[in-house]
């Protein structure tokens, strides 16, 4: 019943985007997001949209799958659009109760929504083309210069690793407990909210007990295998930049430069 939950949304493949170093992808994503917020003229939006479209094609991830990641945002998009439509001063084309709907609002709302959609598509492209493990390694690598100012880069990465390792195990366990309770007549799908919540307690209690027990065991096992934090630790799988990565860095820098130049003109 819970088995359809997956962590992340990695879509295995071997496209150009898949082969980019995860660090490159994170940095480029970051740069593009900044660009999205800095440059907000229609021409800029056109460039960013075309770029996103190009990435989507390059990724070889089916369009349906990609657009599926927009689904949870649907209501937020609609809401954002309506707010801008109703609250932007300008030339009114209709009047609704106390709200005046303007052409400027229409345009503004459209572009803000476009910005959100592009943001989400670009971030999804990162998670669709990068396995969670690589993301973890990349995050640790990118954050490690910040260790000096107290950012716990290694610890964050270790937490992500352990979460990736244990989420499936815990899901299986929850499933087992739920089935055991259902076999005893518990009902999680019908009845009032209060009733259903009450039925969740007998799942959470054993689950929590088991999680603490696991954490205890795991800490012991990690200690037995000489874990003592990130200090002096090496890694079997090291990340390597390829020529493709330099190309991506260069391309992004060029794009930002051109957009900035156009802005200043």
């Amino acid at each position: 019943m819970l088995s359809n939950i997956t962590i992340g949304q990695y879509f295995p493949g071997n496209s150009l985007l898949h082969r980019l170093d995860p660090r490159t992808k994170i940095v480029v994503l970051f740069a593009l997001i900044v660009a999205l917020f800095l440059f907000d003229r229609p021409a800029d939006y056109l460039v960013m949209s075309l770029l996103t479209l190009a990435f989507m094609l390059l990724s070889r991830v089916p369009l349906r799958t990609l657009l599926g990641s927009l689904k949870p945002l649907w209501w937020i998009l609609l809401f954002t659009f309506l707010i801008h439509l109703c609250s932007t001063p300008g030339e009114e084309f209709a009047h609704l109760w106390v709200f005046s709907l303007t052409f400027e609002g229409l345009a503004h709302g459209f572009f803000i929504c476009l910005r959100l959609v592009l943001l989400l598509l670009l971030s999804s492209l990162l998670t669709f083309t990068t396995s969670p493990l690589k993301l973890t390694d990349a995050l640790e690598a990118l954050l490690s210069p910040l260790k000096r100012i107290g950012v716990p880069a290694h610890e964050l990465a270790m937490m992500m690793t352990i979460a990736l390792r244990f989420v499936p195990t815990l899901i299986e366990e929850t499933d087992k407990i739920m089935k055991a309770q259902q076999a005893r007549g518990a009902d999680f799908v019908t009845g009032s909210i209060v009733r259903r919540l009450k039925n969740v307690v007998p799942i959470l209690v054993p689950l929590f007990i088991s999680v603490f027990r696991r954490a205890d065991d795991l800490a012991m096992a990690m200690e037995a295998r000489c874990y003592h934090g990130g200090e002096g630790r090496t890694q079997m799988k090291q990340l390597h930049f390829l020529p493709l990565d330099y190309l991506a860095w260069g391309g992004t820098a060029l794009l930002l430069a051109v957009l900035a130049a156009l802005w200043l003109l």
Partner: protein
Amino acid sequence: MALIEIEHLSHVYHAGEEGEQTALDDLSLSIERGEFVAVLGSNGSGKSTLAKHLNALLLPTSGACRIDGIDTREEADVWRIRQKVGMVFQNPDNQLIAAVVEDDVAFGPENLGVPSAEIRRRVDEALKAVNMTEFRSYAPHLLSGGQKQRIAIAGTLAMQTEAIVFDEATAMLDPEGRAEILSIVQRLHEEQGITVVYITHFMEEAAAADRILVLDHGRLVMDAPPREVFRHARELRALGLEVPLAVELRDRLRAAGVALPEDLLTPAELVAALSGKGGAASGD
């Protein structure tokens, strides 16, 4: 110098507090390099407590525990000790750390700061030694219990430990997984000379060892080869332990008047002895 030397070791949980619990009581023993030692004892007899002393996860309340001559209380040497003695715990689910098999095997050497290429080599070798090479890129939750324990063994092999302590590592496995682990442990012991300390509830597994230690209420009550230990079936039962099936059968047949050697241990020996008898009986 023996690999593991324990002298007058006592361990008291919550010493001096309410609920004080003496788990090990004046234990002295030593284990040589290359030995295969099984540890028996009923629940709460102190087996896990002993195991955790062997790689400094617990420290003696009094007495001493030395690994290859290093006292486990030397704080600075704790990583050297853990590199010499690896551990495989009971629950297969709670000791694998990484989300991919080969990354998990690499965890120990990564902590020790081994260079990447060398880790790669060790991981490949360790996975091969436990016949898990083809599962290298699996997620641990997709493996069976026995396979997970094999990965845990590979994880200690990759640290190049001299000894591996198994704390009821087969308790949660099905018979198939149990047999699998025991045969791998025996092979590692024979081929690579790994010292094995094998805590178990399964007497057939204990019978495969060179030597058996029996604990009772934190004391060492027997320390002898399996043949010798299982001669004392009655004492073992009094300690809440079983005996192997062949031994059980031996004793019942002896009680029924069948003449069998009192140190008979394995099913094969039983069969041999009885088929000899069969010839004699038909002569009656």
